[in-house]
């Protein structure tokens, strides 16, 4: 983004924004704190690839329903499997599912956002109305409907969440593109006779990127929550394969005898989502122009 060749085509406002961004500092307290939490969760998942306190599927009938203790930090389940080990392995599944779902949704949402925002016309009218209609159904309900269609598995959860999040991405990106396409610098590029694809990539993508970062973080938090929710409802990754969602439904059956099962697995979800949310909040303050204008209209500080 800082290539000198591109600066000829970038507008003054973008340069000014870039200055603000640098002086404000990309690394505010919340970005660092949220990023650290997220890093710890990802690190736990990565460590789980090569080492866990116990093998995730190793049963130990002598240690069934062991309460949290030194040997089993979050206790064990009905087969004596170590919850911490299972949650570490499950973290991989959960994080991969949410990341893939959000990635797919962002990619499709970008394409739809640009089609509707830049091309306008009939495509815009039809697609925008379809997106309005989809937004009238809560994302978790859309996801439930799709899992019902495809059957419960890791793949269908990923597809379901991707479809459920796409409308939000399309809506947000369309707004940014519509605002940008009437700027004089875009008009200039079109006046030069540049093909649409060049205009989109060189002039319209840069203003979308910061908002995409913010939207991706927000959706990632939802992705982790919704994967776990689907699992809790019995429609996510199916036990005995570990994921945070599947651990929750296993834990639910024994929540009276062994409350550490649902609480322990849920705590991983809380830490992960908290990290992503704090990171997203910090990034929004730095990157989202909508948050700046609100900030500048106040005398000091800013409202979230």
């Amino acid at each position: 983004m800082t290539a000198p060749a591109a600066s000829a085509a970038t507008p003054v406002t973008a340069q000014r924004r870039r200055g603000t961004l640098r002086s404000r500092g990309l690394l505010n307290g919340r970005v660092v704190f949220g990023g650290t939490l997220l890093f710890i969760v990802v690190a736990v998942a990565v460590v789980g690839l090569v080492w866990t306190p116990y093998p995730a599927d190793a049963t130990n009938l002598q240690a069934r329903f062991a309460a949290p203790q030194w040997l089993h930090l979050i206790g064990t389940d009905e087969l004596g499997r170590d919850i911490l080990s299972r949650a570490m392995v499950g973290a991989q599944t959960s994080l991969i599912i949410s990341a893939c779902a959000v990635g797919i949704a962002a990619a499709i949402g970008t394409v739809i956002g640009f089609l509707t925002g830049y091309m306008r016309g009939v495509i815009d009218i039809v697609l925008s109305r379809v997106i309005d209609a989809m937004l009238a159904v809560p994302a978790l309900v859309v996801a439930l409907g799709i899992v019902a269609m495809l059957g419960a598995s890791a793949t269908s959860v990923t597809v379901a969440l991707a479809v459920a999040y796409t409308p939000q991405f399309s809506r947000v990106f369309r707004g940014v593109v519509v605002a940008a396409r009437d700027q004089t610098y875009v008009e200039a590029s079109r006046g030069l006779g540049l093909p649409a694809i060049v205009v989109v990539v060189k002039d319209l993508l840069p203003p979308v990127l910061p908002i995409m970062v913010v939207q991706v973080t927000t959706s990632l938090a939802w992705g982790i929550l919704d994967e776990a929710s689907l699992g809790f409802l019995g429609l996510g990754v199916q036990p005995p394969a570990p994921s945070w969602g599947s651990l929750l439904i296993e834990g639910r059956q024994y929540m009276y005898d062994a409350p550490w099962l649902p609480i322990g697995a849920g705590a991983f979800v809380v830490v992960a989502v908290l990290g992503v949310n704090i990171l997203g909040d910090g990034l929004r303050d730095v990157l989202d122009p909508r948050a700046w204008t609100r900030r500048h209209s106040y005398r000091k500080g800013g409202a979230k």
Partner: protein
Amino acid sequence: MLKYALYRLCLAVPLLFLLSILTFVYIQIIPGDPVAGMLGPGGTPALVAQLRHELGLDQSLPSQYWHWLSNLFAHGDLGISFITRQPITPVLMDRIPATLQLTVTGLIFTVALGWLGGFLAGAFKDTWADRMLSGITLVGLSTPVFWIGTILILVFAVHLRWLPAGGYVPLAVDPVQSIKDSLMPGFAMGLGLAPYLARMTRAATVEVQHEPFLRHARAKGLRGRTMLLRYAARNAVPSTIVVIGLQLGALIGGQVVVEQLFNWPGLSRLLIEGAVQRDYYMVQAVILVIAVLYVVLNLAAELAHAALDPRIRL
């Protein structure tokens, strides 16, 4: 006001129409042949063809859609269940009182916690109270409903034995028990949604304090408390009503989890059961009802906002 109401209403009609098309299409894009799946291994091709005919699935798509829609409007008929082969509409109607009761309880907790927390944080911006409330809000945003609900059950039902761990009695049968039953699920839902409302209320309260009329009031020497309650709160509230309307979708989504956790026989339970058993018509019907509820409630919230804040009607 009437003109504005009519305008909003006109916008909602095509949306509802499109929703009906989308839910209809949902059934069409299911991979494989649901009818063959419904009959299981015993379904000979002749039987499958016969059932397809009975269900009207051998007609053209537009004619199927027309048939479905006209039945829906003329008789409120949402088709028959794939699994039980019983009409869906009466089953759905049965569940609506429980769902409404839970929604209202959840809404009361959401509004009470969200408005109070958001207003206090906004009024005392940048003080320790604001920082504490904003911290709680952020943790609340990240806490899944099933987690907080499980902890509530363990504390209030298992440990303290104050409230039942789940179950439902209709309001008409035993009002006291019914309200007791709905307290915990409603509170869990409120805890899940109040953080959003608190954030918006905080932002609205902060914004209002910079309006010229408040600067004027301050210049006149009005006491801080009078100013906050009579001027700031009154002007911050209307814009949060739209947020409540938009949050209804999340309220319904969160309800799916809450109903399952507290064993509450509402609409969402039908959705989950339908999804688990792959009862496509049931899933389709519940999604349609939820979407229509959402559109109607949203419309109500926007009209309430317009009624409370004349600036919107312009």
